[in-house]
């Protein structure tokens, strides 16, 4: 039941009706039932994994809380015991995650070792949203361990937190502290929230169906036929693929967030106009925000302040100087974070390289900040002007595009091919000789894509200053209604759906 299918609309409408028509106390049960139905629609065999993970996390949190210190000495002992539970449960969850992600590969490697036929061995079941809910639960366990959160006593309520369907497919990676209280409250129907939520969903559908799926046609075509494409085409397609990924991913976020808003719930923001970032670090504070904050809170911080790292830093400080010592403090944990980020996306080598790529960018920007400052001063660049800011944004965008080229072709070899073509076979003329209209998108569709990207940019610019929904709500009725109807019917008319296309699945769904 993808967000773009008719069955989803029927499901969502029924859910909202039940949610608000039944007694408010039952709202969480309605949500739980709906979420389970939603999850099962992707395959009932996936459910046991989520149930198992939820069970482990729920039980472990309660266990940790039960381990109460009796006195000051036993505090350390209690801590140790709790740590054991934490690590044990965490390990199990990670195992389940690894099973889903690399299980098939492991099984097939074993099969090859035992000379069995690859088709006769079972495939590992890819539990839906396993990366997202595992991280959510790991975060929950860590929060309970560190005393930042109380354990949930009711398993079903905890399950709802884990399986709440708007966030199960592609995130955001929810914090229990943020989401669970909302799920416990009752919510009255609020017309304004309903409107705003519905409008946000419309915007999400626009990004997904009109922009992302349309660009996907071109991007897939170009990257499936690298040998015949010029470097200019490839670069253009890579830029489009950056926009496509953003629209696909954030569009899904908007649909999830908008629908939650209709239910009176808020989800953590996952995107904040990332292409307006001026540095790599800022980019990852605006792109897939919840992933970044998760790694920051649960990997970076604990590592950075762990006694071992501080000791190493001290040693380095003594031998190589204060600056080096400081640098080590950030370099070590950041490296770990970025390798893990790469692996979170996929266990293929190209994603590991991708993680290292971003890690390097961020580490260098941080460690060599003074040098960079000196450089801009040397070149007499005024860093306070608008043009410099725009330069920074464009530069960051291209850094992201490079990252896309590392991942879209699917193999490092493929990416190398693309880079080779871009640098040695650019042919800028191919952008203007009309050949861009034969890359699966005809002239009209290509121009439409450009127009929609412009609309996206304009709306994002406005949104930076003041939320657009607010803006429109305050403007005059005719203009307001016209705008929303324009949006709705752009989706109906320009959306990539129907028997002419096959459904383009959400890209981030297999994580």
């Amino acid at each position, binding site marked *: 039941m993808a967000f773009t299918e008719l069955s989803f609309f029927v499901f969502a409408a029924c859910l909202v009706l039940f949610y608000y028509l039944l007694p408010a106390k039952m709202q969480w049960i309605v949500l739980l039932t709906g979420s389970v139905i939603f999850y099962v629609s992707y395959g009932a065999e996936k459910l046991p994994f989520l149930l198992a993970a939820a069970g482990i996390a729920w039980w472990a949190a309660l266990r940790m809380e039960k381990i109460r210190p009796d006195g000051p000495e036993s505090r350390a002992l209690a801590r140790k015991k709790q740590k054991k539970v934490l690590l044990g449960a965490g390990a199990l969850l990670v195992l389940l995650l690894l099973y889903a992600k690399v299980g098939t590969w492991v099984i097939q490697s074993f099969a090859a070792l035992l000379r069995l036929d690859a088709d006769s061995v079972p495939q590992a079941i890819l539990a839906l949203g396993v990366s997202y809910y595992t991280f959510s639960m790991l975060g929950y366990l860590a929060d309970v361990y560190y005393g930042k959160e109380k354990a949930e006593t009711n398993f079903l309520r905890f399950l709802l937190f884990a399986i709440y369907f708007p966030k199960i497919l592609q995130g955001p990676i929810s914090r229990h502290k943020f989401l669970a209280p909302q799920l416990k409250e009752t919510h009255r129907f609020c017309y304004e929230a309903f409107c705003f939520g519905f409008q946000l969903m419309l915007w999400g559908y626009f990004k997904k169906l009109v922009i992302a799926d349309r660009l996907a046609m071109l991007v897939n075509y170009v990257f499936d036929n690298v040998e015949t494409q010029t470097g200019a085409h490839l670069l253009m397609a890579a830029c489009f693929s950056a926009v496509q990924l953003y629209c696909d991913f954030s569009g899904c976020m908007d649909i999830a967030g908008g629908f939650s808003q209709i239910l009176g719930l808020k989800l953590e923001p996952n995107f904040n106009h990332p292409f307006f970032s001026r540095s790599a670090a800022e980019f990852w504070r605006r792109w897939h925000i919840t992933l970044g904050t998760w790694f920051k809170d649960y990997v970076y911080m604990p590592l950075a*302040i762990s006694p071992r790292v501080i000791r190493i830093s001290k040693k380095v400080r003594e031998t190589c100087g204060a600056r080096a010592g400081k640098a080590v*403090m950030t370099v070590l944990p950041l490296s770990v974070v970025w390798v893990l980020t790469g692996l979170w996306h996929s266990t293929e080598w190209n994603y590991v390289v991708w993680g290292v790529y971003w890690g390097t960018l961020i580490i260098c920007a941080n460690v060599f900040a003074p040098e960079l400052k000196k450089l801009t001063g040397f070149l007499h660049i005024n860093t306070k002007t608008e043009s410099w800011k725009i330069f920074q944004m464009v530069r960051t965008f291209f850094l992201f595009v490079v990252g896309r080229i590392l991942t879209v072709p699917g193999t490092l070899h493929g990416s190398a091919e693309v880079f080779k073509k871009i640098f040695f076979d650019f042919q800028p003329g191919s952008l203007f000789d009309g050949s861009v209209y034969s890359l699966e998108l005809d002239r009209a569709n290509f121009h439409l894509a450009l127009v929609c990207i412009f609309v996206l940019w304009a709306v994002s610019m406005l949104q930076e200053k003041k939320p657009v929904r607010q803006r429109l709500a305050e403007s005059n009725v005719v203009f307001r209604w016209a705008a929303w109807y324009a949006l709705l019917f752009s989706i109906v008319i320009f959306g990539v759906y129907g028997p002419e296309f096959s459904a383009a699945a959400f890209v981030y769904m297999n994580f």
Partner: protein
Amino acid sequence: MEEKVLALLTSEFPDIDFTASDALVDDGILDSLTITGIIAALSMEFNITIPYEEIIEENFNSVAGLARMVQKLSNV
């Protein structure tokens, strides 16, 4: 204690004005990288271990808060 902490911080992070507000974290004056740097500096200087649980707004929003935290951890 407070002056000591302030002196240390300003020497480590000359760009940041730690007296500017009482909500250094909330106001975004301190980001995560800086916080880890502060933790490293404080742990090395005062020979303490700052556990993860102590990384809360109360402790980091102001120099006074930091000083209190250091005091508490030194006495353990």
